[in-house]
């Protein structure tokens, strides 16, 4: 193998950098223009400042492009960068877990991708190359995988850098879950969100500092209300009801539209495939992402749902994975699916859903009683305090306040009682499963062999009442089963440990 040549990223990256600089220039330019008065000169000064910043940004991004080079070596990939100070980072192929491609809007228009190498290092200290052309990005991804596999398979030859026999470019995987426009529309309906109002409110507050419009001035609003109020009351009761309904409909439309837009931009063209190396997920309208999750790195599954969509049989599926990359969103493998579709994905990942006759165990009854007491305790104490204070100072309100607080106490006790019905866990030959949630049940499924430790924890009350929380060490996630009888906790731990101890960690990774 010839000595590897340092390579540069795509020249168009300079343009992306310049455009980003331009975006940053808009605000100072506007500030300069307004600051010097909008008359003739101010505008020119503003444009001048904007241009200057854009040019400086462009030159800077050109220089940093010139100074950044990457080398695809025999055993590692190296990136050297820095204008004044030089930084060189080397990542050995065998430490690269996933290679993902990401396209934001502007790079996408220019046909560029950001290539990210995930190493599992904490704190976002991963290697990324911005930007390569689409083909060279895909090529690099392919190459890194081949090198990685070569290292895995012919480790002794790694020194000489003998490449593995040339592999076919990755065949198109077998699609296992996709979401078309119809599905996205349905999904959007359930993603009702009022976030847009929060944003509007924020903008108003922001505008407040710029525009001479006293948004928090009560007089202004009182004026508006009185004006509107008198207009509305002039319309008579039917019109008042109609306008209230109209307002609710508007709220609903805006909320649904927000959800719809969010779903469509995030999940557009959602495609999950089973490829030779694992799962590959592509999605996104403006920012396109392409993520590969090796199958053996899936540690556990989480199946969740929400209150309303659950009534219509919709669920979501997430993987718990070792890669501590861009948060949980990158492990969304089926954000909105029927149970049948989830079953397919789950089985492809080598797990199985709990069978009909699974051996479910509930949390202990002492735990149920205690959590009812503990959950309602806050309101009971509040009722006692408020009752004493009001009884002395203002007996008129005594009954109402105490009744409301006691009602809340009863409600939380009831919720604790009801949720206990749904809290259960089950252990079978290969998996451990736990379920919780009243209105929208969520389940977690973990493979017994992929657990790392087991802890039985008890607080003072739990010790006195004979139950415990079982914490299982799961890479990249948490798995705890609260409130199970102490003996059962020990029994589950014993069984799980038997399975764990039978396989070594190193066998897990190559599996």
């Amino acid at each position, binding site marked *: 193998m010839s000595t590897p040549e340092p390579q540069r990223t795509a020249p168009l990256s300079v343009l992306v950098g310049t455009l980003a600089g331009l975006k940053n220039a808009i605000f100072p330019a506007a500030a300069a223009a307004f600051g010097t008065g909008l008359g003739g000169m101010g505008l020119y000064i503003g444009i001048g400042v904007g241009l200057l910043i854009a040019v400086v940004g462009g030159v800077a991004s050109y220089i940093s492009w010139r100074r950044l080079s990457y080398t695809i070596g025999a055993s590692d990939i190296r990136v050297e960068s820095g204008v004044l100070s030089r930084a060189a980072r080397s990542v050995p192929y065998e430490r690269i877990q996933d290679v993902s491609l990401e396209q934001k809007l502007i790079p996408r228009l220019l046909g560029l991708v950001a290539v990210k190498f995930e190493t599992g290092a904490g704190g976002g200290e991963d290697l990324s190359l911005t930007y390569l052309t689409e083909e060279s990005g895909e090529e690099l991804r392919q190459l890194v995988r081949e090198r990685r596999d070569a290292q895995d398979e012919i480790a002794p030859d790694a020194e000489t850098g003998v490449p593995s026999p040339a592999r076919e470019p990755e065949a198109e995987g077998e699609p296992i879950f996709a979401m078309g426009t119809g599905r996205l529309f349905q999904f959007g309906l359930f993603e009702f969100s009022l976030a847009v109002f929060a944003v509007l409110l924020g903008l108003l507050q922001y505008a407040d500092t710029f525009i001479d419009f006293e948004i928090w001035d009560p007089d202004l609003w009182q004026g508006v209300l009185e004006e509107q109020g008198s207009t509305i009351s002039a319309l008579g009761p039917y019109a008042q009801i109609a306008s209230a309904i109209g307002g609710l409909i508007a709220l609903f439309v805006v909320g649904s539209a927000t959800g719809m837009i969010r779903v469509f931009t995030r999940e557009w063209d959602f495609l999950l495939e089973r490829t030779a190396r694992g799962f590959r997920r592509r999605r996104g309208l403006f920012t396109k992402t392409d993520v590969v999750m090796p199958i053996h790195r899936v540690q556990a599954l989480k199946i969740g749902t929400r209150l309303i969509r659950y009534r219509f049989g919709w669920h979501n599926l997430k993987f718990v994975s070792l890669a501590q990359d861009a948060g949980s969103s990158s492990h969304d493998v089926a954000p909105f699916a029927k149970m049948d579709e989830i079953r397919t994905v789950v089985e492809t990942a080598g797990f199985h859903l709990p069978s009909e006759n699974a051996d479910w165990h509930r949390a202990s009854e002492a735990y149920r009683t205690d959590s009812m007491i503990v959950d309602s305790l806050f309101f009971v104490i509040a009722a006692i305090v408020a009752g004493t204070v009001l009884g002395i100072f203002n007996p008129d309100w005594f009954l109402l306040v105490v009744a409301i607080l006691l009602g809340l106490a009863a409600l939380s006790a009831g919720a604790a009682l009801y949720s206990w019905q749904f809290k259960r866990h089950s252990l079978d030959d290969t998996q451990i499963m736990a379920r919780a949630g009243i209105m929208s049940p969520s389940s977690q499924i973990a493979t017994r062999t992929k657990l790392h430790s087991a802890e039985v924890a008890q607080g003072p009350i739990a010790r006195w009442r004979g139950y415990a929380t079982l914490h*299982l060490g799961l890479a990249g996630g948490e798995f705890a089963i609260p409130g199970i009888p102490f003996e059962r906790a020990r029994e589950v731990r014993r069984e799980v440990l038997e399975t*764990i101890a039978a396989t070594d960690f190193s066998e897990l990774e190559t599996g």
Partner: protein
Amino acid sequence: MEINASEPIVPAASALVDDDAELTQLHPNYRSALRVQATLTSIPFIIGAFVLEGALQGESPLPFGVLIGVVVFLALVFIIRLPSRRYAARGYQISTDRLRVVRGILWRSDTVVPFGRVQHIDVDQGPIDRFFDIATLTLHTAGSHNASVYLPGLGHELATEMREEIRAHIKRESM
């Protein structure tokens, strides 16, 4: 103080971890180390009590010495009683393929780490630990919960022996 108390020998490694079996006690020096730590922690509070009492002299509704008395009493409980309780509550079991660590007076925790899941092992000694010739053995796992399992208060020699044993086990299984 029995700094050179006879080391507990490495427990019979063939024994299986049994939930009901007797736990192995930590090194007796650990109790003394806990006391020294508690003393060091209490000193600022006692000094604070003296300063406060001095500053409030004549103006305080309480008779002289009450504040100091309460703080000193609490400190004594903290120094004498608590370390014994904590020492008694802690223990461990080691078998051929796993380590069990038990701790906590009120909040009990009972953790088992199989050697096959250990990523790396630390043996740490702080200045107090070095004086008492004890050490903390830490097992790191890949799990998010219990990413590091600490076992303090082992004799230093025992801790290094245990480390070697666990390491040998990891190596054997990976080959």
